[in-house]
Every structure is written in C-alpha cells, then in structure tokens.
C-alpha cells in the first residue's frame, strides 16, 4: 500500500496487485465526479462515449467522445469507383440506407449531368419516404425506451418490420440495400409493390394514432420531455442543425421544399413544426413531435407518388446508368433531407479517374451532436438520456 498523487487529484491510497493498480480511496472530494457514460451504455444509441462531470445527479459538463465506429468512409471512397461507393453510403446511416444512397446518387448525377427516367425518381422517393418512416419509428421507439416505456418500442418495431419487408421485396436486403444506383435503380419494383405499399399506408395510419396515445400523450412522457434540453432557434442555426432537430426549434426549414430535388416540387406535403401548445418550442418533446408528425406527411408523399408514377411499360431501371462513371473535372455539393437532417455529399473529380478525388459526407448526426455540451449543462442524468434520445443519433453516421 502506498500514497500516490495521480494527476493532481490529491493523495490517493493504492494497493498494487500484480500489474494493475487498485485505488482504495482518495481524498473524498465530494463535489464532482467524472462519469464515463458509454461507449457501452444502453442509451447512448451505439458506441458514443459521454464524459460527464457530475455534481450529484446534476451534470456540469458532458463532452462527447467519438470515433469508436470510424471506418474511414472518405478514404475508402477515394479508392473505389463511383458506383461502388453506394454500398458504403448504406452503412453511414444504417437506419435510413435508402436516403443516404439517394443523396449520394443525386450528387454524382449532378456531377455527371445525366437525365433520370421519371419512374426512377418516383420509386426513389417512395423507398426513401418508406425508409424515413422506418427510421422515425426507430427514433420514437428507442426514445420511449430511454424514458422507460418499453412497449411503444416493440409496437414501432412491429410496424417497421412491414416496411423492411417491402424494401426487402424491392431490393433484396433489409437494411443495407444498394438499391439506388447512380443514374437509376438496381431493379424495378415488383409488379404488386404499389398495391402492397398502399395496403401498408392504410394499415399504418391508425397505428400512428395508437402510438400517439400511448407515448406522446402520456402524462409521464410529457413530464419527462417538456422543457428539457431547450435549444433556441438562433443557436440551433449557428450550430448548423438540420432536419427534425432544427424544426423542433421552430425553424421552418426542409430541404425537400427549400432546396427541392428529385420530384419533391410536384408533391404536396406540409413541414410539421411545433406550435408551442403541447411543448415548449425547442425542447425534447418538440423534436419528438416533429418526428411523429412527419411520418404522416411521408405517408401522404407515398400515396401521391403511387398515383403519379408512370407505368412500368418499357421501363428499364438501368437505362440511364452509365457504363463507366468518369465525370468531368469539377466539384459538386448535393444534399438531401434525411430522417436525421441534411446529408450532403461533396465530391471532387479530377476528370481522369473513375474514382473520386475527394468524397466528403456532411453528416447531420455529427453536427446535431456537437451541441451536446450546450444542451447538457446543468441537466440531470435522466434528462441527459432524454436529450441524447431526442437528438436521435446513429453512430454510423457520426463516426463514418
């Protein structure tokens, strides 16, 4: 047993056991405690580590540590052909693979300047919106778990299963689709796909109401989320927030409407915003509400797409897919409204190679998470969990 002074924390009594030092007790500084939340923690939604400085249950500071899931996405992209990057984009936001592929496809198509068949665009929008619903279902369900409500989670997953089934039917995979290709699609949708999607829409409408009653209107749920983690609109904009997070702060901003891509300008949908009646604008409940209401809008979009979609006669989903993608020298930034916010791809081409010179993904989760330090100051540990849940991070996209 000996006295040590480690990192200026005062005198610490330790005992040595083989190689590891066992700290028995130190000068009991009772004011603050460093609490490492994660990377293995049930409610950090993956391998996020938050180092919290806590005073009792109150958090004085929470710093996110990232990189546990870093897979060198951008470096990989520089070494593979343009179409081969598509499967990598699936693995960014693995809960919304279609949306990531969509954003990437838009970026490369912008660089190539190709014309996409109309039917392809509609199918892309349908699968992307289906995937948005699936992603929001996971967000809402896991948010329930974070706050102790287990049952809504399973209800959400039950409904999500139908979407995954539909997407599997179309693409052959449940989560990592590789379906939206540069210039087209891997396959046309199966012949009965539209009918089944319509069936799903009819089935899902009442389920959202049930979910609303079970979770969103629950007194305890409201108590746990209302007024927690308030982010004012101007700070949110300064942080670069996007998607439901930004709309939760009351900023009317949706890329599908404000910077339209694909066939979104032809579609009629609303951008849900918190009205401040149920929730305080900018709090966790607002973000949750935005997600819950967005699912309904996505259903509307899907219905319209099915009605407007050109028939499959003489349709080849790969008709516009280039044999060899070799764009002219230049750079492009294209962005799409993902379930978690703006996913942008910045691609630079040197004009000679079939591989991008540089491919950067602008991840919404990463940007949203950067506000963690501001949001968590002075909150309780349960509130920190509520805040992380409301940010709805996917570590695959944060770390890339």
């Amino acid at each position, binding site marked *: 047993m000996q006295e040590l002074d480690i990192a200026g924390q005062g005198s610490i009594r330790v005992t040595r056991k083989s190689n590891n030092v066992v700290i028995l007790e130190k000068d009991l500084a009772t004011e603050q*405690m460093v609490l490492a939340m994660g990377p293995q923690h049930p409610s950090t939604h993956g391998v996020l580590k938050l180092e919290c400085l806590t005073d009792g249950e109150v958090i004085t500071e929470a710093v996110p540590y990232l990189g546990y899931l870093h897979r060198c996405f951008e470096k990989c992209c520089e070494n593979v052909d343009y179409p081969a990057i598509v499967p990598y984009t699936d693995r960014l936001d693995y809960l919304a693979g279609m949306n990531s592929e969509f954003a990437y496809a838009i970026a490369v198509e912008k660089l190539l300047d190709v014309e996409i068949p109309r039917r392809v665009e509609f199918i892309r929008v349908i699968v992307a919106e289906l995937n948005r619903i699936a992603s929001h279902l996971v967000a809402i369900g896991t948010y329930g778990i974070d706050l*102790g*409500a287990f049952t809504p989670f*399973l*209800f959400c997953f039950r409904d999500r299963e139908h979407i995954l089934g539909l997407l599997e039917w179309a693409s052959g995979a449940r989560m990592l689709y590789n379906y939206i290709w540069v210039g087209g699609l891997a396959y046309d949708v199966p012949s009965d796909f539209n009918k089944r999607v319509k069936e799903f829409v009819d089935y899902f409408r009442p389920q959202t109401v049930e979910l609303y009653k079970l979770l969103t209107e629950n007194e*305890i*749920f409201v108590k746990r989320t209302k007024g927690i983690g308030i982010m004012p609109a101007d700070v949110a904009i300064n942080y670069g927030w996007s998607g439901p997070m930004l709309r939760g702060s009351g900023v009317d901003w949706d890329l599908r409407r404000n910077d339209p891509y694909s066939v979104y300008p032809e579609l009629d949908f609303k951008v849900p915003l918190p009205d401040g009646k149920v929730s305080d604008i900018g709090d966790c409940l607002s973000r949750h509400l935005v997600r819950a209401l967005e699912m309904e809008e996505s259903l509307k979009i899907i219905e319209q797409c099915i009605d407007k979609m050109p028939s499959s006669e003489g349709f080849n989903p790969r008709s516009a897919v280039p044999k060899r993608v070799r764009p002219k020298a230049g750079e492009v930034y294209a962005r799409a409204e993902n379930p978690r916010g703006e996913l942008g791809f910045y691609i630079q081409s040197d004009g000679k190679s079939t591989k991008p010179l540089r491919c950067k993904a602008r991840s919404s989760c990463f940007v949203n998470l950067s506000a963690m330090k501001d949001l968590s100051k002075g909150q309780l*540990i349960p509130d920190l*969990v509520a805040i992380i849940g409301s940010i709805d991070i996917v570590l695959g996209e944060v770390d890339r």
Partner: protein
Amino acid sequence: MTLAALPQFSIPLLMGNSLNVWSEALVGFSPMGLPLGMVILAAIPLVFIALYSLTYGVYGERKISAFMQDRLGPMEVGKWGILQTIADILKLLQKEDIVPTSADKFLFVIGPGVLFVGSFLAYAVLPFSSAFIGASLNVGLFFAIGIVAIEVVGILAAGWGSNNKWSLYGAVRSVAQIVSYEIPAGIALLCGAMMAGTLDMQKITMLQSGSYGFAHFYLFHSPIAWLPFLIYFIASLAEVNRAPFDIPEAESELVAGYFTEYSGMKFAVIFLAEYGSMFMVSAIISIVFLGGWNSPLPNIGSFALNEWTNGPVWGAFWIIMKGFFFIFVQMWLRWTLPRLRVDQLMYLCWKVLTPFAFVSFVLTAIWEIYVP
C-alpha cells in the same frame, strides 16, 4: 408411513381445520431439543413463494409483457415455454460467479443475501389462510413494514460494494426512494390498522370476514378507505422499485442500477428478492384492504356462496389470487408507463402522497371515532 395409511392422512388434510392439527403436530416435532418442526413450518411458505417467484412470477411477467407487446414471449422450453424460468435458473447457476477486483468483497457478497432476507422475512407474518401463518405476531403489520427496510441495507451494500459509479447512483437513488415512500405507505397502512384496531395480520383478516363477502372488506369500510388503499398501492410500487418508479435500476440511465456488477446466482438472488417483494406488497395490500384470505363472494339468499368458498384451503386460494391480481396490475403498469425522473418521484412522495396520507389518516380517525 405405510401406503395403506395414506388415504386416512390425506382426507383430513383437505378438510379445512384439520390443517391446524397437522401444523400444531409439526410444531411439536423437536428432536433433541431442536425446534425442527417450527423451521419446517416457517420454510413451507418460503418454498412455495420461491417456487412461485421463480416460475410463475418471471414467466408471468414475460408472458404478460409479450401479450401486451404483440409478441409470443418464451415458447421454446417446454409447452408454451413453461420451463423457461427453470432453464434460466440452471443457466445462471452454471455461470461464473464474478466478483470485480476493485469491489469491496464483503459488502458485494453480503448485499444480495441481505436483500433476499429482507424481502422474504415479511412472509413470516403473512396469513395465507385461517390455519396457516408463519408467525402470528401481535405486531405483524408493523413487523412487515419494518422488516422491508432491511432491503435498503442490502441495496446500499450491493451498490457501494460494487465500486461502480452506476451502482452507487442506483443505490443512493434506491435508498432515498424506499425511505421516502415508507412514510406514505406506513401511514396508509395505519389507516387500515385503525379500522381494525389491531396490528395482528390474522386478526385484521378475520375482522373482514362476514356473510356479505367483499362488503366487509376494509376498502368498503368507510367512504375514504379507497384513499389509503390507492396511496399504499402507489407507494408500494415505489418500495419494490417497479415502474414507473423503477429509477434505482433504470436500465436506460444507470445500466442496471445497484446490481450492474452482479452476475450468475447473485443476480438471480437479487431478482428473486425483487419478485418476492412484489408478491409481499401485493399480499399486504390484499390483507389490509381486501380481506386477505376471505372469500369476496357474498351469500345470496339460500346460496351460501360465502360459506362454500371459505376455509383454510380456499383461503390460500383467495389470498394468492388477490396477490396475483396486484402483481398483474404492477406488470401492466410497468409495460405501459414511462419512468418518472428522480426529482418528480420525490415530489410525488413528499408533496402529493404524504399530505394525502395524513388527510386520509385524520379522516379515518374521525370516521372510526364518530361513526359507530
């Protein structure tokens, strides 16, 4: 005992009050001055409850939650997964018993034991039927309330001994919660004791018997009796750390609270204690407010339903059914409601439940004094 003697023995066993004879004979059984019969008699409810907790409590929870969540629940082990819990226990028994290097070994090991003892000691005073009570103390209710507090020591030992920050948070939360909620719970039970005029659990139950069945229960004794009943039910949820008051083991916040570091059989013991406590508070609320082992069925004219459905064996049936009902409600709440925050929990206890408990206490006292 020969085989031929069996029928003679089993027939009186089923006939009501001869159970008493049987149990008294067993109490007298003390070879070499050791009161073995007493020990066996006290152990029987424990064995029953342990069996219940293991198989039906855990299995029931899984099946009920599955039913509520559109799932099947355990289906593989045995028909409808009936043997799932046994398989789980066997698995837990085989697991390595890990004690973290930096843990305080004494506290770490003793924690689950204290917890277990604390939750099961109260069974001694629960009357399971008119002929069956482990220890008929004249302060039974007081004992039952008091002995539960031992659990706090176990939780604190487990949480502190684990030398894990999450465990410590869980333990501190748990202790704060249990100690706080004992006040409204205790006052609510006092209302029941006031209506009965005794703390003896067996006497409290007997006072609620009568030919009108449920109408004699203390829940219908006075117009305000539902208030202490409700208060005790809510407070008991908090006392046994059930949702929406499960913040000591809030799995999404504190990983698993005070038993984060536990594995294997120690974990199983903590689990068992938790399910034991669930049945205990359910039994207490049934005894004090819902007539314990009394049949709720009233006599209707010449149909003496109440008499037909009363008796020692029926009594055990009724109290266990009532207990199961409250356990079902606990599970129902758990799988429906989110979790309260720690400060909201304290608010509910000190600013809502405790004042209302006092109000119901005073009103019950007035009712007892002025209404004949």
